[in-house]
C-alpha cells in the first residue's frame, strides 16, 4: 500500500460544498476556523441537515452560506435576518442559521438584529467580528476599536465601538455568547448548545483580518493575533453584558453571557391567537380536484 492510498476522511467535508473550495478567504483569516467549529457542532446534533438552511448577508463572512452544503441563501447587505425570519416563519420545520459579519449584522442590518432579538425569532445568529469592512478593502466599521487605523480613518478612528452582546441582550435574545477564533473547542460547544435552544441565539466571534485590520494597525500576522487573543481573553460565563465592552488592548471578555428561557415568536403567536389560528392541512388529490375540502 502506497502512502497516497491512505485517505483520512474529515467529516466536516460532508458539510461543505467541495466544488466551491478553495474559499475566497485570505491566509490567516479566522472565518474558516469558525466554520470548522460550526460544522463540528452541527454534525453532533440530532437535526435533519436536509431541513437546515443557512442565510448570509454581504461581506467576507457573508460568503459562509455559500460554502456550506445546506440550503444556502446569500442575500443582500444587512438583510440576512429578515430573510431568515420569513424562511423560518413560513416553514417552522427548518433549522435556520444566520451567519454573517459585524458590518452586515450590526451596522447596515443593526435594526433587524434588534427586532429579531425582541421578537425572539427562532434563529441562531453567528456574527464574525473582524472589526473592519474587509470585503471592500479595510474601511472602519461600527466595531473598529479605539483609534485604530483603517482606509477611511487615516488619522485613527474616533467613533466609539459597539458592544454587540449588550445590544442583543437588551433587545431580548435568549442566548448570548462571545468567543474568539482561538477558542475553537469552546466555540463548538457553545454552538452545539445554542443549536439546541429555541429563540434568538447570538454568538459573536472575534476573528483576525491579517490583510486589513492587523496589517493597517501593525498588529502582526494571524499567529500573533491568536497569541494576543489567548493572552487577553478572560472567560466569564454569566457576566453582565454591560461589562463585556471591548477595550483596545484590554481584556476580551468571552463566554456564555445570557442563557434564559423566553417564549419564541411562533410559540407566543400560537398561544396569543388561540382558536383564531387554524391549521391548514394539505388538501388531498380528491379535494383539490373537487375544489372543496371534505369538511366543507
Amino acid at each position, binding site marked *: 500500500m502506497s502512502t497516497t492510498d491512505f485517505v483520512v476522511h474529515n467529516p466536516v467535508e460532508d458539510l461543505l460544498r467541495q466544488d466551491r473550495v478553495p474559499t475566497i478567504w485570505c491566509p490567516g483569516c479566522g472565518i474558516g476556523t469558525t466554520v470548522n467549529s460550526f460544522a463540528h457542532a452541527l454534525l453532533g446534533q440530532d437535526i435533519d441537515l436536509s431541513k437546515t438552511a443557512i442565510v448570509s448577508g454581504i461581506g467576507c463572512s457573508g460568503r459562509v452560506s455559500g460554502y456550506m452544503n445546506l440550503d444556502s441563501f446569500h442575500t443582500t447587505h444587512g438583510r440576512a435576518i429578515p430573510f431568515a425570519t*420569513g424562511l423560518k*416563519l413560513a416553514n417552522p420545520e427548518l433549522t435556520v442559521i444566520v451567519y454573517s459579519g459585524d458590518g452586515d449584522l450590526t451596522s447596515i442590518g443593526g435594526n433587524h438584529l434588534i427586532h429579531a432579538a425582541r421578537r425572539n425569532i427562532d434563529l441562531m445568529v453567528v456574527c464574525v467580528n473582524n472589526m473592519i469592512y474587509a470585503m471592500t478593502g479595510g474601511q472602519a466599521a461600527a466595531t473598529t476599536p479605539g483609534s485604530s487605523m483603517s482606509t477611511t480613518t487615516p488619522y485613527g478612528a474616533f467613533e466609539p465601538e459597539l458592544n454587540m452582546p449588550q445590544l442583543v441582550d437588551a433587545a431580548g435574545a435568549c442566548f448570548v455568547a462571545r468567543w474568539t477564533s482561538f477558542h475553537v473547542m469552546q466555540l463548538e460547544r457553545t454552538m452545539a448548545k445554542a443549536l439546541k435552544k429555541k429563540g434568538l441565539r447570538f454568538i459573536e466571534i472575534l476573528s483576525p483580518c491579517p490583510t486589513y485590520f492587523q496589517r493597517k494597525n501593525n498588529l502582526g500576522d494571524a499567529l500573533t493575533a491568536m497569541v494576543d487573543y489567548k493572552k487577553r481573553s478572560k472567560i466569564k460565563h454569566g457576566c453582565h453584558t454591560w461589562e463585556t465592552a471591548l477595550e483596545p488592548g484590554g481584556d476580551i471578555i468571552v463566554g456564555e453571557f445570557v442563557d434564559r428561557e423566553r417564549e419564541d415568536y411562533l410559540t407566543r403567536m400560537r398561544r396569543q391567537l388561540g382558536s383564531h389560528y387554524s391549521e391548514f392541512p394539505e388538501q388531498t388529490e380528491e379535494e383539490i380536484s373537487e375544489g372543496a375540502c371534505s369538511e366543507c
Partner: protein
Amino acid sequence: MHADQRCVLTGTHFINGDAACCEGALSAGARFAAGYPITPSTEIVERFSARAPQVGGLFIQMEDELASSIALQGMVWAGQKSFTVTSGPGYSLMMEHIGYAAITETPCVFVDVQRGGPSTGLPTLPAQGDMMQARWGSHGDYLTIALTPNSPQECYSLTIKAFNLAEQFRVPVMFMMDECVGHMTEKVVIPKAEEIEIYPRRLASKPPGEFNLFEAGEDLVPEMAHAGEGYKVYVTGLTHDKRGYPVLNPKAQHELVTRQFEKIRRAADELTIVETEEIEGADVVVVSYGITSRVAQRAIQMARDKGLKVGKLRLICVWPFPEKLIRELAPKVKALVMPELNMGQMVLELERCAGGKCQVISVPHAGGTVHKPADILAAIERGAR
C-alpha cells in the same frame, strides 16, 4: 389548478380596493405576508392579519420596508406564496429587493398603492407617480411585470393574475394601485373557488443531484425547489450559473441577464393585457390606466357626444408596455392622448412606440386628485383637429 376553497370568500361583497386586493391574494394562495404600515395601503395588511391565521398563515409586521421586502422572499423560498404591500416612500425602500427577486427569480408580488410624491408627499391623496419606478427602480438590468387595476373588482381579480404571472415567469410582479382605487368601495364579486384559475409553482421535476435551480428549458423559466426539500439550493444575488453558484465574469453575466430579459420579452403578446373600445376607425385614442381610465371614460363620452371619433385603450398590464399594439395603432390615428396622475411618465413609452406616426398628447397632473374630464376633453379636441 384552481383556488383552494378554504381561502376564497365566495359571494358578493361591498368592499374597498385594498380589502379586495387582500382577498385576491388569499384566493391566489398567498397565506403569508410581510409589511410595514403606510397610508394608503395599510388596510390590505390589516385585513390580511385577521384573515391569514384562519388559514394557517400569518402576517408579520416588520421593522421597515427593507425588511418586509426581503422577509417575503424568505417565505417564498420556504415554499409559500407571499407578498408585501406599501406606498411611495416604502416602495422606494423596497427597490433593493425587487432587484434581488429579479436576479434570484423569486416569484412574489409587490403591491404599491400610489400616493402623491416625491418623498412623503401626499399620504392620503392619489397619484400615479411610481410607474417608471416600477420598471426602473432597482439598479441594473431586469424586466418586471406591472398590472394596474381601475376598480375594487379588478383589485381582486388582477391580484390573482399578478400571483399567477409571478409563478409563470418566476419574477416579482408589481401591482400598481392608486389611492383612489384602494379606498374606493364598490361591489366585488368573488367567484367560486373552482372558477378561479391558479398557476401552480413550477416545482423541480428532477431529483436532488440532477436538478439545477437556474437551468431553464424552452420557455427560459427555470423550475424551483425550496429550502428543506433536500435540494440544498444555493440562492445568491451575485451573478450565477445554472446551479446558482456565483460566477463573476462577462459570459455568465450575459447568459443570466439576457435569459431573464428574454423570458419576459418573448411573452410580449401574452402580456399585452388591455381593454379597448371603438379603436377601429377612431381619430383619437385615449390611452390610460388605473383610476385615470375612469375619468377618461367620461371625457371620451363627452367627446363622442360632440361627434368626435374617439377610442379607448386602457392598459391593464403596463409593463411590459404593449409596444406592438401601439406601433400598429399609431399610423391609423391622428392622435394618442394620455392622461396620467404624474408629470408625464408612461407617455414617454407611448411616444417611443408611436415613433412619430401620430401626435402624442400628454395630459399631466401632479396628483392629489384626479383629472377634470374637461381637461382630457380639451386634449382630445386638440388631437382631433
